[in-house]
């Protein structure tokens, strides 16, 4: 018998998933509060105790791997030159690596901005700017600014390759914990994600989890390999693409509504579907993630209310839902669970709003342009209209009575006719809450991870 244990140290819950590798089946899952404030091992041991009540207590785990978004996750600052180009490219690399981009800076950075990095508890800085052979001056200036401020945070350089020698000198001169990798935008509008992401992952494994008090767990388990969102992205990509002879689901959108953030993932090229549409702007990643730090049903509930107009709040009031009051309660009692119908309804409303806003910020949009040969359209971002499946995960969705009502907010709506949202998707739910775990399992056994996902993630009617 060969058993794997996957652990997801989430911001609120530590989730355990046990899988029998030989039989290729899910054995059981359990969860307990994450105890990173005191000792991360406590929550893990409690969760383990709960897991052993469900599975054979004699089981020994052959391999234990973990991902983590505990202690604030991976907080990143993305620096580039032009907002629509290298800044956007840098941002996408951070998001794909599973980071939370707390600071986005463009052009020459100022002392105030450097101070914001210092005070913002940033874990890693991604410094980009210039295509290969392009602008050098700005990125070198920014590197010197970071150097002069005596930052101790790791800096990943992913800008113009012609600056590599100068950057290495700057790193040495100012004693910066620096890493050099390939340009995030080597040519105009061309996105290059892999190199920078693998460096970010290495830093996460070697430095960040130690700084956050997660490293202690490595005495008991094999390793912490990813930030959780990156594991989820891996799982979503596998579920979409398939593996070997096992077919995947094709293009899909994944919505993860959490207490602090709402994450949206889309897997697919998102290229234009019509001949009168012309694609503009930076290339989109095949596996794309966006994260909304102001939309979440507990920590960030106030952000949801802030995104509403006064009129909308009044309309909810008419229906008997005082969203301002409810948001205050939820953001101060983050471990609260719905106790009655009213509470569940409020959670549902918050989840619906989060989903609608988060997908709006993720999807591609078209814009008409009138030419002598008739109306043409610019497309910026990904066309998700042909996406076949929308998958939901996260506590509020998994525990909802009618998760479909929430997930339907992803679909195309006549109120937003220029947004390229899924037109007629099927809705599915990650009932066992195993996506992150399957992302981890896919490192060694993609075929088993895919099989288990296809068995447990079911269409909802």
């Amino acid at each position: 018998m060969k058993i794997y244990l996957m652990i997801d140290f989430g911001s609120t819950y530590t989730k355990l998933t046990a899988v029998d590798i030989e039989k290729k089946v899910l054995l059981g899952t359990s969860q307990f509060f994450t105890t990173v404030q005191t000792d991360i091992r406590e929550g893990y041991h409690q969760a383990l105790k709960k897991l052993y009540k469900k599975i054979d207590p004699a089981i020994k785990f052959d391999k234990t791997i973990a991902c983590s978004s505990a202690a604030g996750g991976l907080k990143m600052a993305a620096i580039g030159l032009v907002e629509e180009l290298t800044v956007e490219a840098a941002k996408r690399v951070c998001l794909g690596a599973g980071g939370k981009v707390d600071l986005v800076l463009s052009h020459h950075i100022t002392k105030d901005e450097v101070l914001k990095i210092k005070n913002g508890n940033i874990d890693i800085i991604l410094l980009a700017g210039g295509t290969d052979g392009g602008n050098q001056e700005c990125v070198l200036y920014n590197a010197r600014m970071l150097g002069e401020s005596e930052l101790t945070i790791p800096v990943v350089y992913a800008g113009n390759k012609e600056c590599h020698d100068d950057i290495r000198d700057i790193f040495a001169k100012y004693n910066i914990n620096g890493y050099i990798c390939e340009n995030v935008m080597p040519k105009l509008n061309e996105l290059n994600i892999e190199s920078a992401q693998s460096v970010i992952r290495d830093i996460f494994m070697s430095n960040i989890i130690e700084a956050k008090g997660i490293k202690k767990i490595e005495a008991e388990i094999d390793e912490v390999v990813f930030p959780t969102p990156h594991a989820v992205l891996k799982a979503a990509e596998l579920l979409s693409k398939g593996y070997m002879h096992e077919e995947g689901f094709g293009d899909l959108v994944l919505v993860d509504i959490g207490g602090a953030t709402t994450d949206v993932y889309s897997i697919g090229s998102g290229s234009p579907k019509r001949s009168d549409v012309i694609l503009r702007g930076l290339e989109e990643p095949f596996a794309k993630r966006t994260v909304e730090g102001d939309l979440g049903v507990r920590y960030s509930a106030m952000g949801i209310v802030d995104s509403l107009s006064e009129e909308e709040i009044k309309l909810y009031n008419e229906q008997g839902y005082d969203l301002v009051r409810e948001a205050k309660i939820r953001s101060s009692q983050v471990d609260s669970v719905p106790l009655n119908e009213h509470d569940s309804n409020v959670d549902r409303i918050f989840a619906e709003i989060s989903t609608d806003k988060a997908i709006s910020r993720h999807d591609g949009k078209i814009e008409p342009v009138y030419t002598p040969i008739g109306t043409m359209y610019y497309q910026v971002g990904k066309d998700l209209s042909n996406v076949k499946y929308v998958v939901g995960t996260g506590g509020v969705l998994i525990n909802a009575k009618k998760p479909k009502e929430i997930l339907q907010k992803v679909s195309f709506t006549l109120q937003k006719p220029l947004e390229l949202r899924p037109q007629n998707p099927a809705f599915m739910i990650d009932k066992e809450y195993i996506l992150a775990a399957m992302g981890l399992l896919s490192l060694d056994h993609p075929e088993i991870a895919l099989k288990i996902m296809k068995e447990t993630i079911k269409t909802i009617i």
Partner: protein
Amino acid sequence: MDTIVIGVIGADVHAVGNKIIEYTLTNEGYNVVNVGVLSTQEDFINAAIEANAKIILVSSLYGQGEIDCRGLRDKCIESGLDDVLLYVGGNIVVGKQDFVEVEKRFAQMGFNRVFPPGTPIDDVLPIIKKDLDELR
């Protein structure tokens, strides 16, 4: 290697000449960044900043060039591209107008070089070389 940004401005979809220009300039040893058809002023400017371009070569074939090009120099200055050379060519105005007048209007808009309809890109090559030599 000097970088030149090329593209077709405005709601203009004429793609053939754009490809010929890209081919010719690349053959001449320039680093060509082509923003393609249906490009806005911002597309040209953003590309020029990131790629550190010396010249922005704007094509317009559908008669609306004057409207589309207005303000490009101002935006370049605003974006820190004070020294970038602006070229424009194609059928840049409506109808058959006196080209001396047209050239004057585009020069006032901040264009360094204005080419009349039917100018082959080969005729522009020596001018590019001369202008770039002067920059050095």
